[in-house]
């Protein structure tokens, strides 16, 4: 859990200044927070709420509405599996199934217990012509096969 240390307070202040300087809104404020911390720490919401005199509920309303926001830290490796139509008909389900089995992800969980991996499913990354698409740590893999995927995942594990 994030503590509001002086260092973190400086970071939050910085975000707040940008927000007022550029006439931003709650969404851009939260996007910046997530950029800095990797997720939206609960305490940062309380902090912003007091500073801006906007009820916490409005923040939570926005956070829970948009798929982009996370309240918990993500894994060190981020695997994004595209579930768009083109990827679906070209077998993205099978890829996702095998990632889940390989990483031993518990049902309904996105991040592995050791915090190494997060598997995130997204609606469409818009690279449908090279479906199925899997993005591992921002590197886009097109026409992904289970063989290649397993090699990538196992390669990651060896590196550690």
């Amino acid at each position, binding site marked *: 859990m994030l503590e509001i240390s002086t260092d973190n307070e400086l970071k939050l202040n910085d975000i707040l200044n940008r927000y007022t300087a550029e006439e931003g809104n709650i969404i851009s404020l939260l996007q910046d927070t997530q950029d800095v911390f990797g997720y939206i720490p609960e305490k940062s919401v309380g902090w912003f709420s007091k500073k801006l005199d906007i009820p916490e509920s409005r923040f939570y309303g926005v956070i829970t509405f948009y*798929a982009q926001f996370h309240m918990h830290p993500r894994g060190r490796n981020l695997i994004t599996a595209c*579930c768009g*139509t*083109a990827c679906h008909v070209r077998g993205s389900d099978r890829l996702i*199934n*095998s990632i889940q089995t390989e990483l031993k992800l518990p049902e309904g969980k996105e991040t592995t217990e050791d915090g190494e991996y997060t598997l995130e499913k997204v609606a*469409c990354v818009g690279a*449908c*012509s090279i479906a199925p698409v899997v993005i591992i740590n921002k590197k886009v893999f097109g026409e992904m096969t*289970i063989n290649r995927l397993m090699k990538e995942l196992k390669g990651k594990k060896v590196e550690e």
Partner: protein
Amino acid sequence: MGTGGMAAGGSEVMEAFNREISEAGIEASVEKFCSMHKVGCRGLCAKDVLVDVIVGGKKTTYQYTKPGMVSRIVKEHLIKGEPVADWMVGEDYYSFHDKQTKVVLSDCGNIDPEKIESYFAVGGYEAAKKVLTSLSPEQTIDIIKKSGLRGRGGAGFSTGTKWEICRNTKAAQKYIICNADEGDPGAFMDRSVIEGNPHAVIEGMIIGAYSIGATKGYVYIRAEYPLAVERLRMALAQARGKNWLGKNILRSGLDFDIKIKLGAGAFVCGEETALIASIEGQRGMPRAKPPFPVHSGLWGKPTVINNVETLANIPYIIRKGADWFASFGTEKSKGTKVFALTGKVKNTGLIEVPMGMPLKEIVYDIGGGTNKGRTLKAVQTGGPSGGCIPSELIDINVDFESLAKVGSIVGSGGMVVLDNTDCMVNIAKFFLEFTQAESCGKCVPCRVGTKRLLEILSRITQGKGKEGDIELLEDLSHDIKASSLCGLGQTAPNPVLSTIRYFRNEYEAHIKESRCPAAVCKDLIEYSILADFCKGCGACMRVCSSKAITGEKKKPHSIAADVCVKCGACYDVWVFKIW
């Protein structure tokens, strides 16, 4: 060098070219003969990375280029002047392009999207100049109205009329918003246009702003498109630098600037009123219309919201005239439309064709037909709001009216080809999973209705369907369509209705025989190894994460049904396919 080309290794290939060329010591001639620049997407993504080599004005295009191939291309082609015939694009590359008519995409893939000069060189910003210096807003709107341009985001409303209504609404402040929240799974037209030619969109917005009297613009773009956002940011900065944005543009008295707003991952924000709520920093939930945004939109002010492709058409219409634009397409659907052709077709990619082109030509002549000798089953258009067009209707023309007649829509332009290995019930369920998850929850028919639809579809795919389920689906679908608040709910049942309409027999097979004819639905299939055919290569065993496959080398393997999670990994690597 769009997202697709990057994934296929575009950057690596470019690096390799730079390296090889400098190593070969022909730096001077490189500058002169082949200016290497990044271009946006040029459509045929299936053959990425595509590289053009121009020697003495003669252009040669290479396909599937890998960094390892660059050395030979440089040595044989650039130095000796002999193109490498083995790697050149074949007939199909040209047939893919020959049938197309490019307006919006005419400059995508030829200009460097990161340089404003590159856009100037093909006549960029001339349309804006013409409008700002010699046309009144009313005259501009007239041209757009005459061209017959209809919104490319899905609904197909006349762009000129929309602008006119907003023009005639009196207010001190007005806004123009570019909707780049391309949320339809299976569609990437808008991403490619912004990645390939961001200035065309900006120019379209300047003309729109002048016509309606707006001084502020927003581009609402998905955060999932990092490359498009980056190129747009660059383009905006360049346009500001040349006074195409800012105060008193071209000394015409027009003040106009554009801000980028990043979407936060909500499909419903493609709906106008939800998009406005999101820009205002609230939950992106739609509200009842009227009042329409042209009367009361962003912060209660008159607002025009246009799709990326619509705006990118504007400069070309102004430059070449309304009659020129109206010469393409059908009587009611003018111009061209960009489609993202994907799925089970040979040439996947981005295409632009005149409205009204027969679907058959798109799938077979441009798309090159289905892969691996499979048979075409249907073409899904319009994403989660659209429907499936069965192969029997392949002769229909693709325009707003014709597609509506068969229960589908043009939508934003996603076109997913399905073959005999696709289960139509599963496809319907796929879309419902999506719309159900993306339903904002404000109105009951959509929130609860889509949930119930999904439950019924799920039980059908699990082999637990009941007699009467099909009728129940139809009944519920009609109610949801009639009573939902916004476009999301009103169109969400379309994939269900259209698959029932054309593939009722597949639903019946699932319900009555617990059988999935396409062998897709997990609960209705079982994986086993045919001992007669298994050569014991071990390929399947290696990919099996659940360790369900056992067997000795060179002897038939077997799958333990109780351990198997039916992920299908083994089926995908299976090399001795017998059908």
